[in-house]
C-alpha cells in the first residue's frame, strides 16, 4: 500500500494509505485525546475530543474517522482545541451524575483521567442531576445509567465483536439511553451471552462487575484487545 507523508504538529511523518489521522499520530508517538474510540472496533466520531485542525479545511475534523492524505498539515494541540475539549468534558460532567468520590471506577476512569489531563478544574455549567436508574438484575454485571456518557462502546462491542446485538441506544438527544433487548432488565435478557465485553469496553463506571471493590474495578482492557485482535486480524497475541 502506498505511503502518505504528512505533518502533525510540525513533525513530518509517513503513514499507510487508508490509515486514520489518529492511527498515524499514535504511531508517531503523538497523543490525541479520545473517548468514544476503542481499538479494534469501528469508529463513530461522536465524542469530538479527538478533533484536529487541518490546514485548508474550514471545519475541525475528528482524527479517528479522518483518513490521511498526501501533504496534510495537522494541528492536534493549540488554544482553541484545548478550550473546546475542556468544554466538552465539562458538558459531560454536567449532563449526568459523575461523582468520582463515590464511583466504583474512581482511579480507573477514562473520563476522570481526561478531565485531569485536559486541565478541567471545575464545571461552569449547571448540573442537571437527572434521575437515571441502576440496573442490577444481571447475575454478574450491573449498569448505572447515571454514569453513562453514551459513547456507545458497549453497543459496538456487543454488535461488532460479540455479534449478539443485545445492547443498543433508545430514545434520542439528551434522553438517549443504553438499553438491553426491548428495554428490559438486563437479567431478563434472552440474547445476552454474558461475555462481559461491554463491561471491559466501558470507559467509566457505568458498566461494572458485581461484587468487586473499587480497587479491583479495572476494566480488563487487555483481554478485550486480545479478543479483538484475534477476531479482526486472526492473530492471537497474549497480553504482556
Amino acid at each position, binding site marked *: 500500500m502506498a505511503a502518505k507523508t504528512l505533518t502533525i504538529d510540525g513533525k513530518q511523518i509517513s503513514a499507510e494509505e487508508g490509515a486514520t489521522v489518529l492511527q498515524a499520530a499514535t504511531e508517531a508517538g503523538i497523543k490525541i485525546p479520545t473517548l468514544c474510540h476503542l481499538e479494534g472496533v469501528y469508529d*463513530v466520531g461522536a465524542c469530538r475530543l479527538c478533533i484536529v485542525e487541518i490546514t485548508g479545511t474550514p471545519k475541525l475534523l475528528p482524527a479517528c474517522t479522518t*483518513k490521511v492524505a498526501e501533504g496534510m498539515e495537522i494541528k492536534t494541540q493549540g488554544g482553541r482545541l484545548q478550550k473546546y475539549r475542556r468544554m466538552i468534558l465539562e458538558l459531560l460532567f454536567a*449532563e449526568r451524575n459523575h461523582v468520582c468520590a463515590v464511583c466504583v471506577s474512581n482511579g480507573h476512569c477514562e473520563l476522570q483521567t481526561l478531565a485531569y489531563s485536559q486541565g478541567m478544574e471545575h464545571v461552569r455549567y449547571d448540573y442537571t442531576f437527572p434521575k437515571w436508574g441502576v440496573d442490577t438484575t444481571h447475575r454478574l454485571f450491573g449498569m448505572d445509567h447515571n454514569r453513562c456518557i453514551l459513547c456507545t462502546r458497549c453497543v459496538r462491542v456487543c454488535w461488532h465483536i460479540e455479534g449478539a446485538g443485545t445492547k443498543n441506544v433508545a430514545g434520542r438527544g439528551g434522553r438517549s439511553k443504553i438499553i438491553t433487548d426491548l428495554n428490559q432488565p438486563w437479567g431478563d435478557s434472552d440474547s445476552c451471552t454474558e461475555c462481559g465485553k461491554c463491561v471491559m469496553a466501558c470507559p467509566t463506571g457505568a458498566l461494572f462487575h458485581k461484587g468487586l471493590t473499587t480497587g479491583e474495578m479495572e476494566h480488563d482492557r487487555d483481554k478485550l484487545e486480545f479478543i479483538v485482535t484475534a477476531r479482526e486480524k486472526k492473530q492471537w497475541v497474549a497480553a504482556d
Partner: protein
Amino acid sequence: MIYHDLIAIKEKELAARKKIVLRCCMAAGCMSSDAKGVKEQLVKAVAEAGLQDQVEVRGVGCMKLCCEGPLVQADPQNSLYIKVTAGNAPSIVAALKGGKANAAQTDPDAAFFKQQFSIVLANSGVVDPERIESYITADGYQALHEVLHEMTPKDVVEAMVKSGLRGRGGAGFPTGLKWGTVAKSPGARKYVICNADEGDPGAFMDRSVLESDPHSVLEGMAIAAYAVGADQGFIYVRAEYPLAISHLQIAIKQAKQHGLLGAGIFESPFNFNIDIRIGAGAFVCGEETALMASVEGKRGTPRPRPPFPAESGLFGCPTLLNNVETFANVPAIYRKGAEWFAGIGTEKSKGTKVFALAGKIKNTGLIEVPMGTPLRVIVEEMGGGAPDGGTIKAVQTGGPSGGCIPSQHLDTPVDYESLGKLGSIMGSGGMIVMDDSTNMVEIARFFMEFCMDESCGKCIPCRAGTVQMHNLLDKIANRQATARDLAKLEELCDMVKNTSLCGLGQTAPNPTLSTLRFFRNEYEALLQPDPFGPRGSGAANQPELATK
C-alpha cells in the same frame, strides 16, 4: 411509450378541453377549509345549470395565496374567488354566465401574483396533480425524452453545470458539480434520493410542490438518474404530509403504467424505478447521512463526512441526494435550455427561489421570485407588510439553522451570499415575518428548544450543548441571568458551532448568534447585576456562586 404517444396524449387532452375551467385549490391548506366540499358543490352546480359540456371543474395544486383559501379561479374570466364556501358554489357558476357571485374576490393581477416568476411552481394551481395526462399536456416528460434520445449522460451533466443551478435544500452546493461527482464515482449500483423531509418549521414549499406537481419531481429524478447512471431512486418524505404521499403514490403508479418509470423508458436502454420511504418525525433526517441511515431502516443518526454520499452513500453505493425543489427545476432546465436558466437570477445564484411566506404578514402563502430580489419587495410589496398596522421587525430565514434579518437590512437581495453575510442562510425557503410585538430572546429560545429536542444524541457538543444553551436562554428570558451567563452562552455557541458532528449541531447556535448580533439590547435588558461584579480578567476562573 414513444414520443408520438406523448404528443397523442397531449392532443387528446387539448381536443377534449372545455371552454371554461373552474380551478379549485386542493392543496393541504385549502383542504383544511373544506376545499373538497367546495369542489363537490361546484360539480353539482355545473350539472344543475346544464353546463357540463362547457365547464370543467378541475382540482389543482396550490394557488399560492394560502391565507385566503379555499381559492377558486375561473378561466378565461380571470376571476379569483377567496374564502369560498360550499354555499357559494351555485352563484360562482351563475357568474360564468353573467350572474353575480356572492363570494369575495381578489385581484389576480395584484403584486403578490404579478411579481412572481414561476419555474418550479409553473404547474402549481394549473395542472391536476392526480392526472398524468394533465402534466403531459403542460409539456411534461418531453425533457426526459430529449435527454434519453439526444444527449449522453456526460452532456446532461455539462448542461446542468452550465445552468448554474445550486442545491435548494439550503447549503447551495452546485448541482452540476454534485451530479458530475456521482457520475464519475465507480460502482455497479448507484442511487438517486429525493430529500422531501422538509423539516424546517415554517417551510412548506416542498409539500406544495409534491402535492401540486409530483410528476415534475419524478421527471427531474429520472433525468438525474440517467446522468449519474443510477437505476433506483427513493423519495424520503415526511409522515406529516399525507396528501403529498398520496399524490406521489398516484404519480408513480401512473408513470409506471405509461412506461415513464420502469424498464426501457421511452424504448431506450434506461431503467429507473422510484420507491417512497416515509419518515417518522425526526428533523435530523433532513441531514443527508442521517436520511440515508433512515432509508436503510436504522436510527437516523448522521455519520462524519467524508466519505461523502457521492462516493459512499446508501448501502455503501455512490448516491445522489437533492431536495424536492432542486429536482423540480430540472425538467424546465432541459426543456428550455441551460442558457435560459442561467440568464435568470444573479451572477452566483441562478434561477428562482420558492419561499413560504408566513408569520406576521398580510399575505401568507407561496411565492417564487428570481434570485436577487430584494427582501423588501417580497415582504412589503408582495406580502403586503405586517397586518393590523404593525411594523416589521425582522424576517427569519433558514429555520432553526438560520437567522433573523432585521428590518434595516430589508433591501438585501435574496441570494446565498448576501444572506450568509448577515449571519443567516437561504435555507430551504421558509420565511417567517416578525412584527414589533415579537420578543427576540423568546425566538432564540424557541429555536434552541427545537434543536435540543431534535438532537439525535450522538455527539456530545450538540446533545449536551443544546441543553445547556437552552438552560442559559431560559435563565435570560426569566430575568435570572447575569452578564457572566451571557458570556457563557456565547462561548458555548462558538464551541457547538465548531465541534458538532453534523449540520444540525453546527448551525443550532445560528438563531441565537444572529439575534445577539442585531438585538443584543433585548438580551442585555433582561440581565441582572452580577454578584461578583463585571466579568474581568480571571473572572472565568472564579468558582461559580451556587444559584440554588
